[in-house]
C-alpha cells in the first residue's frame, strides 16, 4: 500500500444533487486539481466546478475556413493553371459549379479536426494507463454513481483531510487511488527501438508480399487499357501470315494511284534513248540534288563523285563519275543507273523519288562541269 505512490482520493455520491453540491464545496474549499466523474454529462456541473467555457469552437472555425479556402484554390489551380480544358463551352473558372465541392470539403475538414483536436490534443487520448482505470471507483462512476476525485498533486492535499472532507460532503464510499508501476513509466513507447524495428519489418514484409503476389504470383490485367489493339500497325508482326510480316508487298503489276512503275527495267539503252530530263537546273533543285547525292551517293562515290569512297575500303570503290563515259552519258542513262542499279550498285528507287533522282542527275552534271572546269566557266 504505502510503497505505491498516491494518485488521488476519490469519493462516490449517489445522486446528481449531492455531486453538484459536493463539487461546489470542493471549489469553495480551494481545491484546484479535482475532477468529477459521472456516467453522463450533468447539467450545471460546469458552473459547479466553475470551468471556463470550451474553446473547441475555434479549432472548428479555423479548419473549416482553411478547408474551404483550400478547396476553392485547388479547383481554380487545376482548371485554370494546371490543365485548362474547355468543358461544355463554359469558362474555365465556374464558381457556381465549385460550390458543392467547397462545401463538402469545409464540413469534412472542420468535423475531422474538431474531433481529432478534442480527443488527441486536448484529452491526450488514447490513454488506457490512467490510475483511475480498473478501479472500483471507475467501475461505479461509469455505471450509476457520481464520483469526485481530488488529486494528490493539489497544493493543499492531505490524504486524511481530504478523506474526511469527502465524507463530510456525504460520500457513500471513499477510495485512495494509487499509481501502479506501468502508469509511472515516463519513456515514450513510440520510440521504443523494438517497436520501430517491428514497424520496419512489417513494412518490408507487406510490400514484398504485395509485389510478389501482384507481379509474379497472379500477374493479370483486368483491363489492358487498350494497349493490345486488334489491328495491324505499321512495321508490326502478324502471325496470320506465314512469313510473319504485317506489311505486305503490293501485287506485281498492280498500279497504285500516283505511281508509275519504271518502264525500262533492265533496258539501259532504251532508258538512255527515251528518258528525257524535264527538271530545270534551278537553285532549289540543285539543293535537293546535292542533299540526296550526299546522303545516298557520296558514301561510295565520294563527295564530288571522284569515286573516292569514304568507307575506308569496306566496300569496293565505284568508278569516278567524271570519266569520259559518264560525262557523255545521257541524263536518262544516269537516271536509269540510279533507278535500276548497275553491277554491285543496288537500285535506289525506293529511297529516292523520281523528281529527286532527276535532281541528283542535275547535280552530278554540275559536279562534272565543276570538277572539269574550263577557264570559260569562271567568267
Amino acid at each position, binding site marked *: 500500500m504505502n510503497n505505491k505512490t498516491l494518485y488521488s482520493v476519490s469519493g462516490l455520491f449517489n445522486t446528481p444533487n449531492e455531486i453538484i453540491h459536493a463539487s461546489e464545496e470542493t471549489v469553495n474549499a480551494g481545491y484546484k486539481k479535482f475532477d468529477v466523474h459521472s456516467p453522463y454529462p450533468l447539467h450545471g456541473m460546469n458552473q459547479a466546478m466553475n470551468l471556463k467555457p470550451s474553446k473547441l469552437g475555434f479549432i472548428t472555425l479555423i479548419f473549416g475556413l482553411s478547408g474551404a479556402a483550400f478547396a476553392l484554390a485547388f479547383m481554380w489551380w487545376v482548371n485554370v493553371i494546371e490543365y485548362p480544358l474547355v*468543358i461544355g463551352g463554359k469558362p474555365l473558372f465556374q464558381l457556381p459549379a465549385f460550390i458543392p465541392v467547397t462545401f463538402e470539403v469545409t464540413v469534412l475538414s472542420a468535423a475531422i479536426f474538431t474531433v481529432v483536436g478534442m480527443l488527441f490534443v486536448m484529452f491526450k487520448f488514447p490513454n488506457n494507463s490512467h490510475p483511475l482505470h480498473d478501479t472500483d471507483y471507475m467501475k461505479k462512476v461509469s455505471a450509476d454513481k457520481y464520483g469526485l476525485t481530488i488529486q494528490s498533486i493539489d497544493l493543499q492535499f492531505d490524504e486524511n483531510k481530504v478523506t474526511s472532507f469527502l465524507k463530510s460532503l456525504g460520500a457513500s464510499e471513499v477510495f485512495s487511488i494509487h499509481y501502479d508501476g506501468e502508469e509511472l513509466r515516463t519513456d515514450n513507447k513510440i520510440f521504443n527501438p523494438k517497436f520501430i524495428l517491428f514497424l520496419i519489418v512489417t513494412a518490408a514484409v507487406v510490400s514484398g508480399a504485395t509485389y510478389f503476389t501482384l507481379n509474379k504470383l497472379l500477374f493479370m490485367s483486368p483491363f489492358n487499357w487498350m*494497349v493490345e489493339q486488334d489491328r495491324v500497325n*505499321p512495321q508490326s508482326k502478324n502471325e496470320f501470315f506465314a512469313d510473319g510480316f504485317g506489311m505486305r508487298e503490293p501485287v506485281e503489276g498492280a498500279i497504285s494511284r500516283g505511281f508509275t512503275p519504271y518502264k525500262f527495267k533492265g533496258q539501259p539503252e532504251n532508258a538512255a534513248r527515251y528518258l528525257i530530263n524535264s527538271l530545270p537546273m534551278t537553285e532549289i533543285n540543285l539543293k535537293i540534288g546535292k542533299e540526296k547525292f550526299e546522303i545516298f551517293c557520296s558514301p561510295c562515290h565520294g563527295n564530288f563523285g571522284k569515286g573516292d569512297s569514304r568507307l575506308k575500303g569496306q566496300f569496293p570503290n565505284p568508278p569516278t563519275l567524271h570519266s569520259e563515259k559518264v560525262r557523255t552519258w545521257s541524263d536518262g542513262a544516269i537516271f536509269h543507273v540510279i533507278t535500276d542499279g548497275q553491277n554491285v550498285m543496288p537500285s535506289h528507287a525506293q529511297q529516292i523519288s523520281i523528281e529527286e533522282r532527276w535532281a541528283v542527275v542535275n547535280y552530278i552534271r554540275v559536279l562534272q562541269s565543276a570538277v572539269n572546269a574550263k577557264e570559260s566557266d569562271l567568267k
Partner: protein
Amino acid sequence: MSKKPSEQNSVNSHWKSIGEYQDSSSIVEIKQNEFINGATDEFDVSELPILSRRKFLALLSASAAVTVTACTDYRDKGEIVPYTNKPEEITIGKANYYASTCNLCKQNCGILVKTREGRPIKIDGNPDHPVNKGKICNKGQANILNLYDPERLRHPIEKATNSSFIEKNWEEVDKKIIEKLKQSVSANKEIALVAHTNYSPSAKKLFDGFVKVFPNAKIYTYELFSEANKLLAWQKCYGNLNLPVIRLNEAKIILSLDSDFLATDGSVIENIRQFTQQRDIDSPNDFNRLYVIEGRMSLTGMNADYRLRLRPDFQFEFAMSLLSELVLNRGLRTNGIDSSVLSELKKYSLIDFVKKHSFDPNSINNLVGDLIANQGKSIILGGNSLSEQTHIVLNILNDVLGSSKLYDEKSSQMSFQLETSSNDINGLVQKMGKGEVGAVIFYDTNPTYHFPSLDFANQLKKVGISIGLTESKNETSELCHYVLPINNLLESWGDYQTRSGIISLQQPVISPIYKTRQKESILLTWLTGSFDEKNYHEFIRQRWEKEFYPSLKLLSDFTSFWYASLHDGIVTVTENKPQTNKLSISSDSLFTREVKQNNFYVHLVEGQNSSDGRFANNGWLQEIPHPVSKIVWDNYAAVSPKTAKEFKLEDNDVIEIESDDKKISVPCFIQAGQSDGLISIELGYGRTVCGEVGKNVGVNANALINFSDNSPIFYLPASISKTSRKYNLVTAQEHHALDDEFVKDIHRKRKIIQEGTVQQYLNDPKFIQKEKHDVFSITNEVEYNGLKWGMAIDLNKCIGCSGCVSACISENNIPVVGKEQVEKGREMHWMRIDRYYSGTLDEPIVSNQPMLCQHCDHAPCENVCPVAATNHSPDGLNQMAYNRCVGTRYCSNNCPYKVRRFNFLDFRETFEEGYYSQQPISLLNNPEVTVRSRGVMEKCTFCIQRIMEARQIAVEEGRELKGIDVMTACQVACPSLAIEFGDVNDPNSIVSMLRKHELGYHVLEEINVRPNVTYIAKLRNTHSEEV
C-alpha cells in the same frame, strides 16, 4: 574538332561559284572521314577521364539496364518488322489507293481501294469512273469484310465417301478434274458451266476458249434478278436489246411504276446522283418532281413527292389507262402505234381506274398535267417485276411523251442478260436427271439456294463430276465433289463493261491471302493444263494488247497505255452506239394476256442489303438497318395495315404464305404505305449453308419463285393464313403508332424535322425561321477563332440509302453486335438514319434524317463527365479520350441526340463466340483508329484521324490547314452529295454558307447546345403549299 561558323555557313548556304565551293576544304576533310578518330576504337570505361560525357552515359545506361532487369514484368510491346525491301510506291504509315472494279452486281462500279502497307482497309468509289463517279453502294463497301471473312475457304477440298470434305492441293485436284472433263468429252456428255451474267470481255473470250477446248461444254449464265422483261419489251418495240441510258438529271417529271430505281433497279448510284442533282436548294425552280405508284413502300417511294399505292398486277391497267388518257383524251401524237393498239386503248379509262382504286384525283390530275406540260422532260420508269406487256406500254408512253430526248446518245447499256433463260436452267436440271451431263461447274454461283424448287440437290447426284468454285461454302458447294476456293475481287484481275464505250479494269490490291485462285485462272489452268499465278493477268494483258489496244490507234506504246488504264481503272472509248430505231408495235396480240386476279399477291423483291443472298455472311450488311422498316438481321412479310386488321395480324406474327402448292412461313411486319392485299418479302435471306453469321438469318422465300415462264416470276398470286407462332423481329428504331395522338408527329412538333414545299419556299424563303426563338447563354462564350469544324446535311438530297453508315463502320472499326444486342438497343453505329412517318398509316409521309454526333459548342455530355474524358478541342471538336473513360454512361444519358455509343460488352468477343475477333479480321481494322474495348464510351469523331492526317500534310507543306483538306468517310461515301464538311469560320466554305442558309436549322435549337451539324430543311416539290 571545332569549325569556324563562317565555314559552317559556307557549306549550308548554297554556293555561289565553283571557286567558293572548293574553298571549304576543312569540311571536305571532315567528310572524307565518315567516322571521327577514335570512334572506331574499343570502348573501355576505365580509360575515360572522370565524369567525361561518355563515361556518364555509360554509367547511366548501366544503371538503366539494372533498373530494366529489376522490373521484368512490363508487357512486351512487340517487335519492329520492317520491309526487307521496301516497295517503291509504299511509304510506311501512308495509305495507297488502287483503282479497281467491283463486280458484285450488274453495275460493275469502279472502286478505289485504300490500302495500308499493302493491306486493303477500305473501299470507296473510283472518282474517275463516269458512271458511279467516286461513289459506291454499301454492299460494295462492305465487301472488304468478305475478303477477311474468317470462314473463307482456304484451300481446295474434295468430298470423301462419307460426304465429309478433305483438304487437297491444287495440283492433284486440277489433274483429276481435267481428266474427268476429258472423259465427259469423250463420253459426249455435256459439261455445264453455270455462271452469273458475264460482263467481262476477257472472260467472254475465256469462255469461248473453254468451249473450243471442251466442245460439248455449255455456258449457262443467269442472274436471280434480271431485267429480262424490260429487255424483251424493248426488243419487241425497238428491235434491239440496247436499253438506253437515261439522263435522269434532265428529267423534270419522273414517274416510277413500281421501280425502285434509287435502291435496286438499274445503275442505282448514278440514278441517285442524277436524281438528287435536281434537288438543289440553290435552284428551287429546277426541282424535279417524283411520282411513285407502287405496291410496297420502297426506298424510292419514301422520297416521292406524290406516292400512290397500287398493286403491281394493276400496273398494266394503269399504264393503259394513262396512255388512253394521254392519247385519246389529251390528244398526244402517236407515231409507230397502229390502230389495233388504239382500239385496244378505248377499253381503258383513267377516270374509271382512279375511281376503282380510290386514288386521290388531284394527284392523278397533277400527274397527267405535269406529263403533258413537260413532254421531252419527263420519264416513266417501270420495275423489273412488271410484266413484259406493261413494259411495252411504258415504252409507248415514253415514246408518246418524247422521253427519248432523255436517252444518252453517247452510250447504251450492254445487253448480256438474255444469254440464258430460266427454261435453259430447267433444261439443265432435267438433263442432269437423265444423266446426260458429265460435269457441272458452278462458276461462283449458288443455284441450289436461288432455285430451291428446281431440285438441284437430287439431280446433281446423277452428274459425273460437280465442281463448285466459291469464296466460302454455300448450299451448292456442299453438294459438289470438288470445292475450289476462289479469290475475292480485291485479289483478282479483270475487265468489265456494262455500257458501250466504258471499260472498267480490275486489279488485285493484295496477293491471295489463302491458297485460292481467281476463277478465270482456274478455267485457264484447265485449258492450258498448267497453272501460273500470273496466267489470267497475262491473258487479259495480251487480249488488250492484241485485240483492244490496236483498235484505239493511240500514239503511246501499249505498256504506258496499260499502266495508265490500270492507274485510272477506267478506259472510255467512243464506240458507235447501235442506233435506236423508231418504236413500232404491230400487233395487239401483246395485250391479250390477262393477269388472273387474286385477292392476295406475294411480291418477292431484291434484298436491300442482302441482294440475292451472296452477302448473307456479312455482319455489317446484316446489321445496317433496312432503310424503310429499320429491321435488322431478318427479312419479313410486309403487309398493309388493312390486311393486318383483316387477318388480326400484329407485328411478329408468323404467317403462312402459299402460292401454287409452295408454302413458306414468314414473320409479318405491318408496313405503313403498303398497298392492301400485297405481301412483299425480300429475298437473299434464309441461307442454310454459309458462315456462322448468315446461317438461318431470315427466311428463304426463293421457294415461291415460279419458273414456268422463260424468266422467273417474282410476283405471284398467293393465299395467306395466320399461325399461332410468334417471331421476334428486331428494329434499330422503335416504331410508334401513327394513329396514336400521343406520339404522333412529335418529330415535327419538336422541330427535329423541318419541311416545306418548293412553293412555300419560293413565296417565303424564311418560312422555317418564323418560330425561331433567340437563345442566349448565361456564361460568356468560348471563342473559336481560326479553323472550326462543322458539317451540313442537305435533307433534300439525302434519300436514306445508308451508304454513309457502312462507310463509317468500315472507317472507324465499329464492331458488329448481333441481333440480340440490337434488340436491347446496343447497336454501335456512330451514324444512323432516323426515319419518321407522318400522315396516315395508309398514306404516310416519310422523312429521313442522318443523325450523328453534333459536336455541340455547349456539349451537355462534357459537363457531366466526372473524369473529363470528353471535352472540347480548340478546333471545335467534341472529343473522347477512350483510355480516360471509366464508363459512367452519364454523357450518353445527357446527350439530347442519343448519338453516343457504349461498349456494354466486348462485342468482338461476345458476337457469335468471338467470330469477329478471329484472324484475319485484325487486318481489316483501320490502323489509324483505336479499337475500343469493353466499358468505353464512343461516338462520331468527325473522322479525326483524317483531320490529323490532313494537318500533318499541311504542316509538311508549311501551310495552314484548310477546311477543304478534310473529307469525312460518310461525306466521301454519300452518293447524293448530301453531306458537306469543313470550316464554319471560313466565310467562303460551303459549310458556313449552308449554316447561314435560310433553310438551314439545327435539331433541338431551343436547348441551346449549339450543334455544329446544320440540316437543310427538305422541300417537297408538290403543287400545294403545305406538306
